[in-house]
């Protein structure tokens, strides 16, 4: 597993990050999930992305850390907004969504729950550019960083909303930005990833498989209880499926080869620090490790793949 530097923090993170959304899913097979986490952490993946509010994922990870012993993984934590909203909203004040006191309480609780001394990163998700100068989130996170409880401060951008992060990256106030980057949404490559390089800000590229849409998975609807059943409503599922097939066909590949291609696509951008891919099955972990080992895609493949964006 290759390591990359998390921007100015200097932390060496594995180029694959264990994404944990699937670990919080209802009906999850806990034994299989534990095996998947153990395999990932035992195979050189030293970084985990985690929503602090996802109690099931937190407890699976805590158990894995305890059972494995030794150096704990770097945890990239997504803080919990105190205001529920469907879309990033400038009408919600940063002080209401992410009050400093709540950020501190949640961070300290997560440290205890996971049994780690320091989180690598705390991120404010569904980031609104207006928040840069609002509320007390920054001074709180700066204090937590000073106290050694977190190593870095970051923001996580809503799906397809990369322009929202430009000011934050250029401001010098954040160490890391998380964004969606995949074959369907390639927008990050245009402006924000180069900007991250210029300001030495780490970049976590998430959802490289478009929630499983860049795989054979969409042949069938998702089961009830999986949030993707609603997200991939019928016409969305069919369009995504057709577009995924078109990518595979354009390179003469079977659709089963798509996850590896999609993962390598996300890893190919030099400004991407790490790719957070959701994994809750050992076979997915193994396949993704193998794909990452193959390294970046050749330039001419990347050129051909540029034409397949449709969510940017």
């Amino acid at each position, binding site marked *: 597993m290759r390591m990359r530097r998390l921007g100015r923090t200097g932390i060496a993170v594995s180029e694959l990050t264990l994404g944990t959304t699937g670990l919080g899913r209802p009906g999850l097979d806990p034994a299989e999930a534990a095996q998947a986490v153990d395999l990932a952490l035992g195979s050189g993946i030293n970084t985990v992305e985690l929503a602090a509010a996802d109690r099931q994922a937190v407890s699976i990870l805590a158990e894995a850390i305890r059972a494995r012993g030794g150096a704990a993984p770097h945890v990239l934590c997504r803080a919990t907004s105190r205001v529920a909203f*469907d*879309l*990033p*909203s400038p*009408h*919600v004040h940063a002080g209401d969504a992410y009050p400093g006191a709540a950020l501190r309480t949640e961070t300290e609780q997560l440290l205890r729950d996971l049994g780690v001394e320091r989180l690598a990163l705390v991120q404010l998700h569904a980031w609104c550019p207006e928040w840069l100068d609002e509320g007390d989130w920054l001074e709180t996170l700066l204090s937590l960083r000073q106290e050694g409880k977190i190593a870095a401060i970051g923001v996580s951008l*809503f*799906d*397809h*909303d990369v*322009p*929202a992060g430009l000011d934050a990256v250029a401001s010098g106030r954040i160490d890391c930005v998380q964004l969606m980057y995949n074959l369907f949404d390639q*927008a990050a490559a245009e402006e924000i990833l180069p900007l991250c390089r210029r300001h030495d800000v780490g970049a976590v590229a998430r959802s490289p498989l478009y929630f499983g849409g860049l795989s054979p998975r969409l042949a069938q609807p998702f089961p009830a209880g999986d949030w993707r059943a*609603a*997200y*991939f*409503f*019928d*016409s*969305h599922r069919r*369009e995504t499926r057709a577009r995924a097939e078109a990518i595979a066909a354009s390179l003469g590949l079977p659709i089963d080869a798509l996850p590896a291609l999609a993962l390598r696509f996300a890893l190919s951008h030099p400004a991407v620090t790490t790719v957070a891919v959701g994994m809750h099955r050992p076979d997915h972990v193994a396949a993704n490790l193998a794909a990452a080992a193959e390294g970046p895609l050749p330039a001419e493949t990347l050129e051909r793949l540029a*034409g397949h*964006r*449709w*969510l*940017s």
Partner: protein
Amino acid sequence: MTALASLPADAGAEDARRRLADPAIEAVEIAAAPLDAQPFRDLVQALKRAPGFRLDFRGQTPDEALALVARQLFAGAFAAERASLAAEIERLAALAAALVEGARPQIALRTYFAPGDLVWHVDRVAERRAFRLLWPLGRPGGMRVTQADNIDPGIYGAYMRREHPLLCRLDTEVLRTGAPLETLWAHRPAQLAAMTTGRFPFIVDPARAWSVAPGAISIHRVATPAAQGTFHCSSWANRHAPGVQIVITVAADPA
């Protein structure tokens, strides 16, 4: 049952307030004289020919804001037309303000077409009570409204999670470059087709949509933390002829 109430041109705030108090009514339309019969028609025609823009009055009076526009675009011309348009905007702002106690009207003038308006949406503010008045001048199609129960909430939420940020970017791009929507979204034919036809996957019954008469003034609910907003969208017919739109928002927290 209609979701749109029609009022005569001389309707006042009390008439609008009464109709909007009925939860079945999503918007009222108030008849307005056609643009050709308006004393400020030449100013509007000139604005329609100029590059598209949006101006928030931000505390300026309509007179001051229109003077600024005229200075920048028309070397200060159209003084008489400006005065009559400003007076009409003042009248409508007062009408709108009377709908929400304590509200100061926020006025904007818009001459570009934001493609995001083609997708059913609600306007939103942080205050607890709010309405928006729209006065389109020289737009061929009237705004369309529908009832909240004509929108499938699950599909709408998923659609907007995917599309909302893309629509915001599209609006910015159109305003910045003036590039045609069809070119900018050529790689998204299904989404473009939905915008052209108004047939979105989250609409339960496409027949349950009402169009404001072209040129009429309309007032609809704005979503607040305390109230639902009116689902509305623009018509594809406005795509190449956005005209001039006066947008007046009134919002306040009850004392």
